[in-house]
């Protein structure tokens, strides 16, 4: 009992707070009337901020495993949890509109969101295949519930596609886990680390690793499960799409980084597999996004391409790779929430999803357009935004300190040219001379505006103060 309290107090505190807040949300929905959605929002926001603060308890206890070696706390997991909780704060801020319309059901919405965040945090810090599987399942189930929350038809179809996709991926993951279990008889990462694989089992080890990676890529939106990502984002409501494009992906990448770091760092053939998948994903995302007219599908394709880049950074099995992934993930968080928040503002006032209705928006609301412009430039990877630095760091890490990374570096860098073309289509539309609609952006979307301007500010700040962040990410990548 003492051990349990010790573990919870020091390491598991953030997750505990989130779960208690989720339970409170469900409980309190019985007692409140119709207009209590604001209370639910504030409760959620406060609980996330408290759990973010309580992460500091765990900093001095790095390397500890809790719950009989099922979860682990390292520098890497702390940073991923910080990113996940930041993403959660942005999501809650952005879903102000939705919770207003949901009225009483807002409690359920926020509690499912909190459970999803709990599952992401557990996923990142899991040290064994059982909690990995459970957290992944909870994450996909709650995400599909969040998608299907609305009372129209499109979210239901999107949720169906999402859940069938994730079920198939979970099937692959389970097959891989079972073969890994069969080779070594152990499910724990720290015990699997002991390399006693003989020559007979190395092929099976490779196959099971590939199956596990395939199973995880559904959450990441990468090949081979990237085909339905644009449909899913098009069907889901805006804040949920923003949430889906960041938080489950960061959690999935976190656990993939941990698996690669503990299990697979010796097998070079896996590097080849992962980099090939990553390049295909980048190409799919960039080429698919060129002819899109719907803003949600466009942003979905762009997030697919960015996930391809993050997967590419993980395919470098070294410290530089993980540290470039952390920097890219941080910048990706701010970029993505910035553009989705800007899209939410626009859709709230003009009511359409079409990209062509962004024409001439600079002359109606210049500051908002400039913020949107900076986020788009960061997505494209041009200076002076931190998107450029993250890609530069990625390319530097790709060379792997010798010439063997060149065959992967060259296609990746050539694909970024398409990225510039992709985003400048929208940018040139925004600055076009004749505004086609009278989009008067009302003044009350305070939360969304906060998110947009804060994300833009962070994009510029992480460009100028990149040294500290890169030092932090290098420190985090060592203890993975």
């Amino acid at each position, binding site marked *: 009992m003492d051990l349990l309290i010790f573990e919870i107090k020091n390491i598991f505190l953030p997750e505990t707070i989130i779960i208690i807040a989720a339970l409170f949300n469900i409980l309190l929905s019985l007692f409140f009337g119709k207009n209590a959605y604001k209370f639910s929002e504030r409760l959620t926001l406060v609980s996330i901020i408290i759990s973010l603060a309580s992460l500091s308890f765990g900093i001095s206890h790095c390397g500890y495993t809790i719950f009989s070696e099922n979860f682990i706390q390292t520098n890497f997991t702390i940073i991923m949890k910080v990113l996940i909780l930041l993403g959660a704060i942005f999501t809650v801020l952005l879903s102000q509109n939705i919770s207003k319309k949901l009225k009483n059901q807002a409690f359920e919405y926020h509690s499912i969101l909190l459970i999803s965040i709990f599952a992401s945090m557990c996923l990142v810090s899991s040290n064994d295949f059982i909690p990995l599987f459970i957290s992944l399942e909870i994450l996909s189930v709650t995400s599909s519930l969040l998608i299907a929350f609305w009372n129209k038809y499109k979210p239901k179809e999107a949720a169906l596609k999402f859940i069938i996709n994730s079920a198939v991926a979970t099937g692959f993951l389970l097959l891989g886990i079972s073969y890994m279990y069969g080779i070594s008889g152990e499910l724990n990462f720290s015990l699997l680390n002991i390399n006693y694989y003989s020559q007979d089992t190395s092929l099976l080890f490779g196959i099971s690793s590939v199956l596990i990676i395939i199973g995880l890529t559904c959450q990441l939106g990468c090949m081979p499960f990237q085909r339905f990502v644009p449909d899913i984002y098009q069907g889901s409501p805006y804040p949920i799409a923003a949430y889906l494009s960041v938080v489950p992906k960061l959690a999935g990448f976190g656990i993939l980084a941990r698996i690669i770091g503990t299990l697979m760092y010796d097998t070079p053939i896996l590097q080849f597999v992962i980099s090939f998948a990553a390049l295909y994903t980048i190409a799919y995302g960039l080429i698919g996004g060129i002819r899109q007219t719907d803003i949600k599908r466009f942003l979905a394709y762009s997030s697919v391409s960015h996930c391809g880049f993050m997967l590419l950074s993980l395919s470098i099995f070294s410290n530089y790779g993980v540290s470039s992934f952390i920097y890219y993930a941080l910048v990706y968080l701010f970029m993505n929430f910035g553009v989705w928040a800007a899209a939410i503002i626009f859709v709230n006032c003009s009511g359409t999803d079409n990209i062509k209705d962004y024409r001439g928006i600079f002359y109606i609301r210049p500051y908002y357009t400039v913020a949107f412009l900076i986020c788009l430039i960061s997505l494209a990877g*041009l*200076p002076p935004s931190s998107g450029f*630095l993250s890609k530069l760091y990625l390319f530097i890490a790709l060379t792997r300190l010798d010439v063997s990374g060149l065959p992967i570096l060259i296609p990746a*860098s050539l694909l*970024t040219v398409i990225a510039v073309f992709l985003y400048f289509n929208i940018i040139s539309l925004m600055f076009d001379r004749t505004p086609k609609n009278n989009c008067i952006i009302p003044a009350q979307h305070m939360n969304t505006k906060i998110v947009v301007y804060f994300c833009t500010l962070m994009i510029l700040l992480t460009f100028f*103060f990149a*040294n500290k962040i*890169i030092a932090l990410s290098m420190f985090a990548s060592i203890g993975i």
Partner: protein
Amino acid sequence: MFDLLSLKILIFTPVLAAIIIASPLFGTNFIYIRRFAKTCGTIHFLYSLLFIVFYNFGVESFYDEIMIFGSGWLEKLGINAAFGLDGLTVLLAPLTSFIFLISLIVSKTMIRTKHKMYYSLMFILLSTVLGVFCSKDMFLFLIFWEAELIPLYFLISEWGSCNCKHSAMKYLLYIFCGSIFLSVAMIGLFFYGYLSNGELSASIDFLRVSMTDGIFPVFLKKLLFFGFFTGFAVKLPIIPFHIWFTDSQSDSATPISMVLSAIIINTGAYGIIRFNLDLFPELFIKYSPFIMIFAVINIIWASLAAFKQNDIKKTIAYYSISQMGLFLLGLSSLNKIGLDGAIFIMLSHSFISAGLFLITGLIYQVAKTKTLQELSGLGEFMPILMLFAYVINFAAVAVPLTIAFPGQLLVFLGAFSSDCSIEPLAKICSFIAILIMLLAASYIFKLFHKIFCTSQFYSTKKYHDVSGHRLMCIAVICFCIILFGCFPDSLMSIYNNFTESLLEILRV
């Protein structure tokens, strides 16, 4: 700690001015914006002149670094935000500021909409170009190089005419593609510096030392050389990558064309000197016949194409391309005369093409057309403009006592007497180049003759002659052209040490 004459101030005050202009401080009162912009431009230009005055010859001076919280900007990766000036850039920086000032003054009547955005974008562009010239670190160079893309894209696409959006996108894609080659080559060079020296640093001096001391496989050196060369070849337009240049020039507004031709091209030329010549001397010597051939193709193609153009701006754009061909010819000659001439052409071409585009802009304002067929007989109404136009005309064909003459003379002398590996090639190339430059004489003369001298049926329209600020701008440019034509040594003595150090590297 806080010097009065620091490069950080030079490079980042235009950004500050841009932010002030873009902020709600000025409202939409464009008169105040214009005056503020012109004042800032003048102060900046005078400040940059101080750098020449206090320049220590032969010693790299004004070394400046941006420190954030006591450590370099990206010290973990070995990238420091270091700025410095040497013999060449101490001339290029004030030149940049000067051309920007002229275009800011001229844009009083040529830019009629969206003043706030225009002036802030111009200042951001000024800052990024100065950053390209003054940076002493390879990745910092890359950051400013790529940061040039966005302001110029907006400048071309917003205030241009007819096809400006397509031209702006063409510009963006071409230059970005080139800079991808550049960034891959830079990353490769960065890591070879690390491998041969054990220290992770992207500073250009460090890389030069590690290139000479380190052991690099030759195949890799060739790849890096080609990567760098492609990246710069797109910017300094080398046929066949020149399409973005001619299209952007014909479709953008006059001040932007001036800046594009006078300054942005120079960044490509500077890049070739700084990276290809400085860091890969043996490869440059080995490939100098090819570079000479590229140069001659530039000259021939551009001069022949300029004959058939109907659009005045495209003709002048091709003239710029042929001048850059001359620059490459001088570079590939590998002796002091050629290098001196090449750098002088870099400077002289700025003035002349700025002047040519200015005249085009003034004509366009008055006659509202750019096609050659519709323009004639303007000399009757605008004698002063005709006078300055012919001064620039003579300068363009390199008449002595104008600024182009010393440059072209030195380039031809150097190319003719160059000791490149294929002996007759040098002589043939320089001979062809001289012949083609005679052609240059004819197409520019033909252009201005058609515009000004033939008298046609436009007598019913009344044209005003140039006056006021436009007259002042064009007069200043012509004055500089004649002044530096009469006293070229004033410029050459400043970069003399720079060329000598380059030659040292080449001989070694």
